[in-house]
């Protein structure tokens, strides 16, 4: 049986943390597994999605990024057959699925699974009951349901908590149950609507790693809506940037990061936080915390005058807390080790908290 822990680590470490490598096992000339053709949708006369077209390669994870209100969730809901487009069509593996009715629409929905931001689990059921529902609805015999549910819960690492009511799970566990429920019908496509937006950075990482590993194991094609650039960076192969209801830019994640063309794409890339400390070659990344008087002093310019050390600011924030200012800078020092050491102790003497290792920087988007 598959255990969640090890293959997940293998899957994530095999990928570059910055530029995910597109799944090499999939021939790129294949017909798209999911295609959206010129979708339009308006609510109350107000256009929400306009002329959105997208094609998703089989086995790839395709991100849709944009700010809130850009129309990305509506686009995903049309693709997932939760919303009917005003015009345009979604195709699964070349078959049009928009505008179907009755049994055909139910069957099309079973070809896709959906994971939501707020998990949307059934509170009246246990974890196993949640995962079982799509199968029960498809008329699968009871014994087969039990077996498949146990397998899926094992796949997401919750085999030991099958009979627990879902209200007692943590956010990350809830999303794992939701992922198992979405995949229990063996769908070809997984839709993730801000699936990690309600989770803390660490849980976000583990859920993304789970989705990556499931993609590899089950040959899924994934469409992932998010407003977090970190999610795109960590999980996606391709990405579409949406603004004001339109897809303004599409391409590989690599091309978006290295040469963003549109203003919104540039803004998204610029808003991205610096790399984690361990990803930088010299380990001299420091977090400096200023508070009270030290926050209003020109400390850094004095530092570079008095010590043979260059300071490179990676990122900075300043807060006003109850009338006094407090700030935080993430910097790298360049210079001799003794000089850097002297500079750091001088900073400490100025009332600044100096932390040498910066961890968990990437997920505060």
């Amino acid at each position: 049986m598959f255990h969640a822990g090890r293959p997940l680590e293998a899957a994530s470490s095999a990928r570059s943390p910055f530029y995910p490598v597109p799944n090499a096992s999939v021939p790129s000339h294949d017909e798209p597994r999911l295609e959206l053709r010129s979708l339009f949708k308006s609510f109350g006369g107000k256009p929400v999605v306009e002329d959105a077209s997208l094609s998703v390669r089989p086995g790839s994870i395709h991100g849709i990024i944009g700010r809130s209100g850009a129309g990305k969730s509506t686009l995903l809901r049309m693709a997932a057959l939760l919303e009917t487009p005003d015009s345009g069509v979604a195709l699964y593996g070349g078959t049009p699925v928009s505008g179907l009715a009755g049994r055909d629409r139910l069957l099309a929905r079973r070809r896709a699974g959906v994971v939501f931001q707020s998990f949307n689990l059934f509170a009246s059921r246990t974890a196993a009951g949640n995962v079982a529902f799509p199968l029960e609805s498809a008329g699968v015999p009871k014994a087969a349901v039990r077996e498949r549910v146990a397998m899926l819960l094992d796949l997401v690492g919750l085999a030991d908590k099958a009979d627990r009511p879902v209200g007692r799970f943590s956010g990350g566990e809830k999303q794992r149950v939701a992922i198992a429920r979405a995949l229990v019908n063996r769908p070809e496509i997984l839709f993730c609507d801000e699936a990690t937006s309600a989770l803390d950075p660490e849980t976000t990482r583990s859920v993304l790693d789970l989705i990556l590993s499931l993609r590899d194991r089950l040959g899924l094609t994934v469409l992932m809506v998010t407003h977090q650039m970190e999610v795109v960076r960590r999980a996606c192969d391709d990405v579409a940037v949406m603004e004001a209801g339109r897809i303004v830019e599409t391409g590989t994640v690599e091309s978006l990061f290295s040469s963003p063309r549109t203003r919104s794409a540039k803004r998204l890339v610029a808003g991205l936080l610096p790399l984690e400390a361990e990803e930088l070659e010299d380990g001299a990344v420091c977090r400096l915390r200023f508070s009270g008087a030290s926050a209003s002093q020109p400390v850094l310019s004095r530092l570079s005058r008095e010590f043979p050390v260059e300071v490179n600011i990676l990122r900075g924030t300043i807060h006003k807390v109850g009338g006094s200012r407090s700030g935080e800078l993430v910097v790298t020092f360049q210079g001799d080790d003794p000089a850097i050491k002297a500079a750091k102790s001088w900073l400490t003497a100025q009332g600044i908290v100096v932390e040498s290792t910066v961890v968990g920087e990437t997920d505060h988007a």
Partner: protein
Amino acid sequence: MLELLDLLIRPTLETVAMVAASTLAAVLLGAPVGLFLYLIAPGGLSERPALRRVLDRAINALRSFPFIILMIMLFPLSRILIGTSIGTAAAIVPLAIAAAPFVARLVESALSELDRGVVDAAVASGATKARIALAILLPEALPSLVSGLSLTVINLIGYSAMAGAIGGGGLGDLAVRFGYHRFRLDVMTAAVLVILVLVEGAQAAGNAAVRRIKSMR
């Protein structure tokens, strides 16, 4: 004292039977209508705006009818269904018909309170509307449905006392006949106290059931 107890037993049982039977009938009549109202509402799983408006008006009209008038109007129906328009069994007909639209509204509002996302999740799984309604929506709404049920029972206890006053039997009948016509303040007080106990009991049982359901989630 013994005489008082003797007087109370039969009407109390009549009231309990009247309320139980009419609650059951009201739920059977009203709950499907409530579910239907929810499903055909704008944004629901099977939108039918025109039909919805018609049903809405009909339910409001029925609910705004004074119960005492409704009861008199339904005498002929009681006679057809039960064979008489007098007595405890006959009173069940107007009681159920008066409570059914109330139940429909309670069911509709309990379902409307459900998180839209939970409905999305059920829809996305490719289940039929009937299965979504029965296997997900109603169980998810169970706490609100149960507290709505205790509200229905309490309302029906009140209505049944009114029904008693015009020939329906039960505690209302007792209170009016002895307390009002014969100036037996003790009987009237005792009848009112028993009604109070029944109402409190229904409320407490409902609350306990809701707590129990929630504690299992």
